């Protein structure tokens, strides 16, 4: 009697409970994040997209010349669109009209650390922040457009956050810093990823970038509190600026090392493939490889089957 009673209760509850549990766990998997999340929303205009429908349909690089929304000059725009733009990257000089408003923005937001002349020294000549002179507009654009500058916490590595300035303001600050040392450092690139060679970008990324940023672009911890950031929100301009200027702990890759064409291919691979990975196999599990897979396999795989055991078998 005792037994019959218990079994009928189990009969009523166990089967639906197991079904609901299994469905819920699958739902968890399906709706879990497909790719590593970075810490803010995209900062500039739409990146290049590659179709990554499940089933791996051939992807196409779409033409979206939006690396910089304010095209600095008609000549730059012409050079960008000209068929002679084989490498896909035009390093542009920012218009002189940007310098004056940039100086005002710099004085209000940056000079407290970097100094009015961006030397990084306070009035006594003591260095309190990096000297920005000679780094060029592209370097400044990278740090400001990714929201890393202005810094909120000087003790830790600057992280990507919502930028404080809009696109024009960012370029104005960059133009001002560039005007202090004309011709030096990294210029702001206009990147045209249309026509890029994704296969070459893939190979170059694996050889030069994956050792820090990981093969999925998710980023990882480096030594001494440093981090290789996730690339999932980087814009084409930012990718090229980072390659050329080597922000933070990143090595610098000059044109003798990675040519403009190669930089363009890497950019197309990062913004096209890594940011829109082909997760034909289901949820991407964070793109961190076997660590995530192990947890899913043990907790959901073995775990659900143990629940089934629990249903099938006796519990006392």
């Amino acid at each position, binding site marked *: 009697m005792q037994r019959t009673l218990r079994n009928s209760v189990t009969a009523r509850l166990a089967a639906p409970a197991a079904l609901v549990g299994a469905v819920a766990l699958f739902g968890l998997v399906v709706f879990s994040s497909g790719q590593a999340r970075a810490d803010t929303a995209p900062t500039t205009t739409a990146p290049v997209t590659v179709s990554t429908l499940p*089933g791996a349909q051939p992807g196409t690089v779409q033409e979206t010349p939006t690396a910089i929304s304010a095209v600095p000059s008609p000549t730059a725009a012409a050079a960008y669109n000209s068929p002679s733009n084989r490498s896909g990257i035009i390093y542009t000089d920012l218009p002189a009209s940007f310098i004056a408003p940039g100086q005002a923005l710099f004085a209000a937001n940056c000079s407290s650390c970097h100094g009015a002349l961006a030397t990084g020294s306070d009035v006594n000549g003591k260095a309190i922040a990096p000297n920005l002179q000679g780094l060029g507009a592209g370097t400044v654009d990278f740090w400001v457009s990714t929201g890393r500058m202005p810094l909120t916490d000087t003790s830790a590595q600057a992280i990507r956050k919502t930028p404080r300035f809009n696109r024009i303001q960012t370029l104005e600050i960059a133009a001002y810093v560039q005007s202090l040392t004309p011709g030096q450092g990294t210029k702001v690139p206009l990147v045209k990823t249309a026509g890029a060679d994704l296969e070459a970008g893939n190979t170059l990324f694996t050889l030069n970038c994956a050792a820090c940023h990981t093969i999925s672009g998710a980023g990882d911890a480096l*030594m*001494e509190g440093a981090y290789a950031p996730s690339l999932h929100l980087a814009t084409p301009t930012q990718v090229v600026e980072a390659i050329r200027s080597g922000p933070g*702990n990143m090595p*610098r890759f*000059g044109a*003798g*090392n990675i040519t403009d064409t190669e930089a363009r291919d890497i950019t197309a691979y990062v913004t096209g493939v890594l940011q829109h990975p082909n997760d*034909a196999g289901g949820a991407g599990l964070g793109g961190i490889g076997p660590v995530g897979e192990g947890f899913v396999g043990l907790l959901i795989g073995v775990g659900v089957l143990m629940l089934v055991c629990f249903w099938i078998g006796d519990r006392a």
Partner: protein
Amino acid sequence: MSDNNPRLEGPLPAATLDDPHLQPATKNPERMEAMAAAAIVVGMLGFVAFIWAYWVDANTQWQAATLAVGMLGLGAGTIAWGKYLMPQGPFVEERHDFHSSDTERESFNAAITGRGGLEVKRRGLLLGLFAVGGGIMTLAFLIPGVRSLGPKPTKSEDTHGSTDSSLFTTNWKKGAKLVTVGGREVKVDDLEVGGVLTVFPQGHEGSSPDQVILIRLAQLGPDDPPYPIAPPGKTEYGVQGYVAYSKLCTHLGCPVGLYQERTQQLVCPCHQSIFDVNSGAIPQFGPAPRPLPMLPITVDATGQMRANGNFDQAVGPGFWERP
């Protein structure tokens, strides 16, 4: 023994449907049967849907969902059938000791020691010869079976490929051109300060033991004093602010591809050994026991970067024959 537990003679009685001990476990078998049937029907629909998903080349998620629903329905239905609708008992089965009777044991042991021992005593010579012969046969199979598998690691190679010296030495030699994996020749102006590049001796692009990581630490011209590397004697291995280290980690041979530019450390992505580039790649932390071997490099008159000799030691992880 109670009255309803009579001692039976002969074989076990056949089970009958009205036997009170063979009734299903659930109180309401009709409803449970309906539920199990429903589950199996759901499973059937799942399998049909899987065939449909295959037919229309639906994506992997559809294939998995339909197949999983099919398996789930069929499985749940069958389990419910077994758990709620079949005789539950509990039944009991007697268990017996495994060991044989003493007599059986004795006769078994006697067969081995007695009958066998007799033969050993009588024909000891044959037995010894058989053992030696078997041993030689094993060797005869093992020697070609193992030796053919690969070359022998030696310090110098013979010509017919049965030895391999690549554990001890590399293809770098004095004058070898530094090229990228794609074969591009590396010039002295190619790297900016803080730049890194993986290079190979020309003609051996992509070869594992030959991989070298080239780093530019300073913008120095041909007439500047060389960039100082801390252990004495290694400074002249670099040239014009360049240094070159074997890219094979001395821990487990992973490519040490992670260069932290600001702290000037090479890090192995596999097990996080840290090498200080400024001091001849001496390990600062982690499991790597030895510095990365340094490759002497030079620049010729055309600006082409060349090796100035081979490594002064074996590259990569440690092994027994490593001096």
